[in-house]
């Protein structure tokens, strides 16, 4: 028994270390001089701690024709992810509430289509979005990406909220309706106060997903309108001639930080959302 406990802990700790290697390597390299990395390898302890990589990655190093680091792209990602997260969550809550609690003709078909939206590959939507964005004059704008992610995210948020609201007893609604409460009043007074758990999960998932999204960002924006994921790829392409691995590591870490922080502080919700969404 003692031995098997030891084996369990050994395997778990070794696996945990393996999982941490990439993160550890990036943190270590962000504190090493780029020349030091190029002359040894990516995996190594900093001989001398250097903090200059961070300010350089943030707003100094040059990429394409601009020398403003990744700060503008971080700003783009924020001003894209925050409105798109809030809009898709709010509309999804409303739509989930409609499907779950206001039975109407065809609600099953509508729900099936919403679910399909989650599985539909992004590649099927690229050309239609190009046309829609062009006609709306939103090509290569953050507003265009907000629109895409709101519509795209709605499938997911609707499904999440619907699955949660289905658990609310119908009697509660009937009683409210007898008292003369309508669609909005019931939503506002009864449903929303019950919603924080699901709304937190939805917001965390949407923010992570939108922040990390790459294909739409790289397809519909270019230059200084790009989100940070698209800029990172451009950065790796631009930097190969003169490797600046230290700066690049700092940039990668900065780009990953927002979702990592959300995950660390909302981990409990992250986990419950993961299992709830998948097992239903």
């Amino acid at each position, binding site marked *: 028994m003692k031995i098997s406990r030891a084996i369990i802990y050994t395997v778990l700790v070794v696996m945990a270390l393996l999982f941490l290697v990439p993160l550890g390597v990036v943190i270590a390299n962000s504190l090493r001089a780029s020349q030091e990395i190029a002359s040894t*390898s990516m995996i190594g302890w900093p001989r001398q701690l250097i903090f200059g990589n961070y300010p350089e990655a943030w707003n100094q190093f040059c990429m394409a024709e601009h020398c403003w680091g990744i700060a503008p792209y971080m700003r783009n990602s924020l001003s894209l992810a925050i409105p798109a997260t809030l809009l898709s969550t709010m509309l999804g809550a409303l739509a989930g509430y409609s499907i779950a609690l206001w039975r109407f003709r065809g609600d099953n078909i*509508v729900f099936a289509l919403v679910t399909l939206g989650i599985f539909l590959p992004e590649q099927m939507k690229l050309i239609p979005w190009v046309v829609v964005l062009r006609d709306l004059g939103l090509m290569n704008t953050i507003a265009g990406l907000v629109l895409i992610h709101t519509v795209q995210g709605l499938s997911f948020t609707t499904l999440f909220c619907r699955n949660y609201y289905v658990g609310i007893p119908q009697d509660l609604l009937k009683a409210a309706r007898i008292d003369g409460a309508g669609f909005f009043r019931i939503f506002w007074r009864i449903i929303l106060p019950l919603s924080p758990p699901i709304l937190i999960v939805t917001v965390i998932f949407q923010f992570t997903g939108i922040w990390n999204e790459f294909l739409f960002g790289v397809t519909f924006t270019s230059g200084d309108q790009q989100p940070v994921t698209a800029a990172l790829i451009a950065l790796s392409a631009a930097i190969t001639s003169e490797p600046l691995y230290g700066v690049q590591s700092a940039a990668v870490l900065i780009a990953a930080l927002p979702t990592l922080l959300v995950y660390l502080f909302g981990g409990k919700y992250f986990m419950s959302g993961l299992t709830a969404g998948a*097992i239903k």
Partner: protein
Amino acid sequence: MPTALTLPAGERGAQKRAAGVWRDRFGRVLTELAIWLPLTITAGHVVVFTAWTTWVSFTASSLMPDYTWVGLKNYWAVTRTANFQIAYVNLFIYSTGFVLLTMAVGLLLAILLDQRVRGENVLRTIFLYPLAVSFVVTGTVWSWLLNPGLGLQKLVHDLGWQDFRFDWLVQSDKAIYAVILAGVWQGAGFAMALFLAGLRSVDKDLIKAAQIDGAGAWRTYRRVVLPTIWPIFVTVFVILLQSAIKAFDLVRALTGGGPGISSTLPTLVVYDFMFQRSELGRGSAAAVLLLLTLVVVLVPYALFMRWRRRRQERA
């Protein structure tokens, strides 16, 4: 309001009632709008966009959409390219390796974490964190670690073992395995989370009964616990498989589909046709074929879920 004061009492009531009727009507319209607008957008864009891209795939569209019907021409052209054929062979290798290894690692971690270990929360957080990070970031980092002149191979060489070789990333016939490695690292935590939730949902009395019968831990898992949570295996399998079919960012950041086109995947083929070669018709045909690949996986799953629900309802 002075006018209201001059009106006779009866008329005032009628006005109030009329305002009430209008408010009711307005409220009803607003309600209908609130129900149908978000639902129409979500459900509508799925139907319209799918039909739209499918339509484009049957037309002569090149740089711009051009709605001249050409039948299956784009499909013939796309499926004959080396790009497409390599991509589907790669998809087969990648999805098999990724799904099986991710499930194996995820299940191992879940079973070990289920042994009432200390520090479970910390360990779980560590196994799951890759999921919170974008594929672009993890792909970039893995491209450094697996780069023979920069990462693991270089480190081992510097330590004195000069014959050590770990250069999958630059070998055309091995690059796809590098993608599997990074994919498993990112996905194993997800599989672990689902398996762990499943293990925790197993009736404790069932386990106790098995132990009283003298079954060891290994036997209890194999004979009692895992068979009761088999539906979770199906779910994890399908979710991982569909994510393998849709994989794009990770390959793009890790190998860029290279060396050459040796590690390309169906999603990259779509992007390549649409935006690098500006052949929208062929790109759309590739996208529709990608969707059909997903359908092959998802339709049986949907039928399976329905069958299970029916059976549960009858039970």
